[in-house]
């Protein structure tokens, strides 16, 4: 069950990153920082803004989207057409700035985020689960479903998919590539912020929490294949569960190694991702 909690949030992180990575061809090192931003935004809205827990979650998501849109507009759009290393370097800079900005604003001490759920576990037959964790799983799944709907069913989603498949043709068909990039980055960042806001109350919020989140998100992206939404969803769940099993049965010291081992195995045997349909790699 803990595997599901982790897995759901990994899936959120992974979906956001796979969209950005796949569509914008951008190695986004700052992805984890939006996750951190989500956690701190929740904390701030709860303690300083005096909002309720659910309102704080919403604030975190909106803030994530706004910050994402701003970054794309200011940092990435002027560098469109530069090589992937150049944009990556900017994201590394952003990562350093955001992380140290958070350190400056909140200090190095981890913050615990209060939540309204009772701490006594619910027992369902043989398993006990804290209500908070149940909520996190449900919320993560709901958000995943919502992003699915956006991507598969709306005009915007169709434009995004078209851009991913063939940028020039999409542009010729009247898709405004610039706007799609901004929206995609904002969308991905909002999902990362949501993941941070959801996991924040379970763990703690601290400035460097995003580093691990970035690593997991990259792992999920590989598992699922670049730009593959379904792959990222399943990949996140698989990674979360595999980590719990690895930590339980092998050694908790190697918990974070599970993801790396999976990456290497996947790339060895199924380089286009675990869940990719048979397709040619160009």
């Amino acid at each position, binding site marked *: 069950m803990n595997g599901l909690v982790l897995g759901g949030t990994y899936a959120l992180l992974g979906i956001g990153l796979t969209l950005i990575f796949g569509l914008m061809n951008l190695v986004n090192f700052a992805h984890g920082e939006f996750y951190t931003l989500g956690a701190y935004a929740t904390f701030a809205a709860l303690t300083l803004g005096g909002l309720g827990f659910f309102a704080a979650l919403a604030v975190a998501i909106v803030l994530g989207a706004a910050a994402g849109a701003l970054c794309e507009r200011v940092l990435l759009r002027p560098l469109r057409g530069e090589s992937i290393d150049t944009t990556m370097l900017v994201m590394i800079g*952003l990562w350093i700035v955001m992380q140290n900005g958070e350190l400056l604003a909140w200090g190095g001490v981890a913050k615990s985020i209060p939540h309204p759920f009772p701490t006594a576990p619910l027992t369902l037959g043989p398993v006990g689960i804290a209500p908070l964790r149940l909520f996190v799983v449900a919320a993560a799944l709901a958000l995943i479903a919502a992003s699915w709907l956006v991507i598969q069913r709306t005009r915007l989603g169709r434009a995004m998919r078209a851009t991913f498949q063939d940028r020039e043709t999409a542009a010729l068909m009247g898709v405004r590539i610039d706007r799609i990039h901004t929206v995609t980055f904002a969308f991905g960042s909002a999902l990362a912020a949501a993941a941070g806001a959801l996991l924040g109350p379970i763990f703690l919020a601290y400035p460097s929490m995003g580093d691990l989140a970035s690593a997991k998100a990259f792992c999920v992206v590989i598992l699922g294949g670049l730009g593959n939404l379904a792959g990222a969803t399943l990949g996140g769940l698989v990674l979360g569960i595999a980590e719990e099993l690895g930590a339980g049965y092998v050694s908790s010291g190697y918990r974070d190694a599970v993801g790396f081992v999976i990456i290497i195995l996947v790339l060895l045997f199924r380089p286009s991702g675990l869940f990719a349909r048979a397709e040619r790699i160009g």
Partner: protein
Amino acid sequence: MKRAVIALAAVALLTLPFWLASPYHLHVAIMAGIFTILALSLNLLLGYTGQLSLGHAGFFGIGAYTSALLTLKLAWPVWLGLASAAALAGLAGWAIGRLALKVRGAYFVLVTISFAGMISLVSINWMELTNGPLGLPGVPAPELAGLSLRTKSAYYYLVLAAVAGSYLVCHRLVHSRLGRAFLALRENESLAESVGVDPTHTLVLATVVSAAMAGVAGGLYAHYTRFVSPEVFLFSYTVTMVIMVVAGGKGTLAGPVVGAVLFTVLPEALREAMPWQWQLLAYGVLLILLVFFLPRGIVPALSAWRR
């Protein structure tokens, strides 16, 4: 003009310990040298073959641990330790190259990240060999003809020699047939293949050379600080190397050198200029500004400006 500048720089570098009185400044110079080797090695892959390795801290760490363990536990001489560091890191590079270069591009990036992450976890968890997070203290300093090179100025010359060696290796390699094959692969893989370049073989070779150089830098680092801990695998080392190469100018020989010196000195200068909370923040902002104004790097921008 150009020759005069080079001669002046050479004299300045050779006499550095005489006019740089403070041991702290000499320390910065030594670290800049070690990072120059790292940046040169990363540039071989990123700049010339176009493959980005984000696992270079892994090769660096393997080199550091190999040399430290061999000299500590088996009492091998430091020189043999350094050679083994190069060999083992090169071997790791070969394995990673074989594994990852089937896929290349974004996937190569991710495999190298995973490799460095995994090897770092091994160094933390394999207590018997590596002493875990506590690290290995008491790594011996190298000796030359019975003299110990433990003073900073002696070590400076050792590092300087290693930098010169690495630069020459890169220079020779880049201007050889193999170096042209690297460029051909970077520019157009199918075209390169059609004129007889074996892509995987060539790229694996580049990875091996690059990893071995990073291994030597790791060994030099271990014998300089005389202490190795899992921190040598920190991702931030890799990030620093990438910053140095891309900001200095990838795919040029002078770029990584300029980048390495600049980005070793910059944090130290910031340390003197402002309170610690602001240092990294300013570092990040400067980095973003640099990319904005010189997206191709410092050295290419300079040579474009001179023309």
